[in-house]
């Protein structure tokens, strides 16, 4: 195996400086970065571990919002009663990711940071309006998970930049999330396609509807056409329209696991199911 320098900074300025060097890659739980290293897909000059940085392990929950530190693992997130109470739907999705051994290393922020084309958490964060706080050589900035996920990998970060935390906004009254995924196996399998819906649900119907899908475009993305179809409150006709709009928007690939046509069909079905569970909740 190729050797690398392994740095484990305990201060933010040191971490930023180490990561600004050419050939340096950041590591949190290592599920993505060390897997790529072991497969020979990357050959880093140095690996900079971020888990010893101040406050990265903090999970702050209050009705005004949630802050998930970059070092918080999926295991910790799922186990925190205060988080489960505020965002039970996200906790339920995180609890189904991969396996216990992966969840004890994998961080929620890393799941977003790695910029895979497939993720269970990114679409859910997209419909919640989650944001990332980034620190780097140029100071601090924030961007939405939706903007981050527009490019693959860590393309949204400049050299030396580190995501410090993910923020979930205050939960609107009546806001609900439904998530539906389809994978070839029940356990330990990434979804082929998945759909997350977030909406304020009232007796009159849906408001502020957000739809995000995995497997429809190159990256997990919001689907404006499906959102527009549901803007009128979500009567029966518009539910069907939204499902067709999502299927029409999707440009999924065909491979040995499923044809593009089948995936498109699935996306429509999953959206209908997700909307059904939102109603029933």
């Amino acid at each position, binding site marked *: 195996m190729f*050797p*690398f*320098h392994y740095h484990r900074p305990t201060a933010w300025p040191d971490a930023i400086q180490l990561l600004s060097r050419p*050939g340096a890659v950041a590591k949190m739980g290592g599920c993505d970065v060390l897997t790529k290293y072991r497969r020979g897909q990357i050959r880093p000059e140095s690996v900079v*571990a971020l888990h010893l940085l101040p406050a990265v392990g903090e999970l702050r929950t209050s009705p005004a919002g949630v802050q998930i530190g970059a070092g918080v693992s999926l295991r910790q997130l799922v186990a925190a009663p205060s988080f489960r109470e505020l965002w039970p739907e996200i906790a339920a999705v995180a609890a189904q990711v991969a396996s*216990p*051994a992966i969840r004890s290393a994998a961080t929620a922020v890393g799941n977003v940071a790695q910029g895979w084309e497939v993720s269970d958490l990114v679409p859910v964060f997209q419909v919640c309006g989650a944001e990332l706080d980034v620190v780097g050589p140029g100071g601090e900035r924030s961007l939405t998970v939706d903007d981050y996920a527009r490019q693959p990998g860590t393309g949204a970060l400049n050299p030396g930049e580190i995501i410090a935390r993910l923020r979930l906004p205050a939960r609107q009254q009546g806001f609900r999330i439904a998530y539906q995924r389809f994978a070839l196996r029940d356990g330990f399998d990434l979804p082929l396609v998945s759909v997350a819906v977030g909406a304020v649900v009232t007796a009159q119907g849906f408001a502020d509807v957000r739809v995000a899908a995995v497997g429809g475009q190159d990256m997990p993305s919001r689907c404006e056409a499906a959102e527009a179809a549901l803007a009128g409150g979500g009567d029966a006709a518009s539910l069907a329209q939204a499902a067709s709009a999502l299927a029409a928007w999707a440009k999924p690939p065909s491979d040995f696991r499923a044809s593009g046509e089948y995936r498109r069909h699935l996306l429509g079905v999953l959206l209908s199911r997700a909307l059904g569970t939102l109603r029933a909740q």
Partner: protein
Amino acid sequence: MDARTQKPARQVVELEVDGETIEATIAPHRLLVDVLRDACGRTSVKEGCESASCGACTVLVDDVPRLACITPAADVIGSKIRTAESLRSSDGRLHALQEAFIHHHAVQCGFCTPGMLMAGLALLEENSRPTEQEVRDAIAGNLCRCTGYVRIVRAILAAAQTLGARPERRLPEMAS
């Protein structure tokens, strides 16, 4: 200092493995799976896929299952590491999980077994009365090419019963 031209320096570290303190000299990029096998003699820790996909390298780090194939050894200095070697007691008796694996024919080639045992142990330490689904979730990341899983699930459920029936495990429950 140019990182590219300098070879990473080796360092002497102390690891706590199965209750034993072991000193090893390692390069900074060394992964736990290699250090456990080569420097600590823990050959129960298997390496199947080498990339987080099979669970054969599962060990417990501070009681939590971790994949040793993607864990830098430097990250677990000061942690309590447990491998399948820790299961057998000093007088040679097997752990109830090991006995159940034998009794239920949950072992064929044996390559997945240490990882299965550690995933099962982590579950039973957190949840002494798991349902079948909870057992299946606990070993979801552990692949077995031989048994078809049914016997492994059965063995872990049986071990839970055996452990639950032992007086030292019942006392806290009865007190609560």
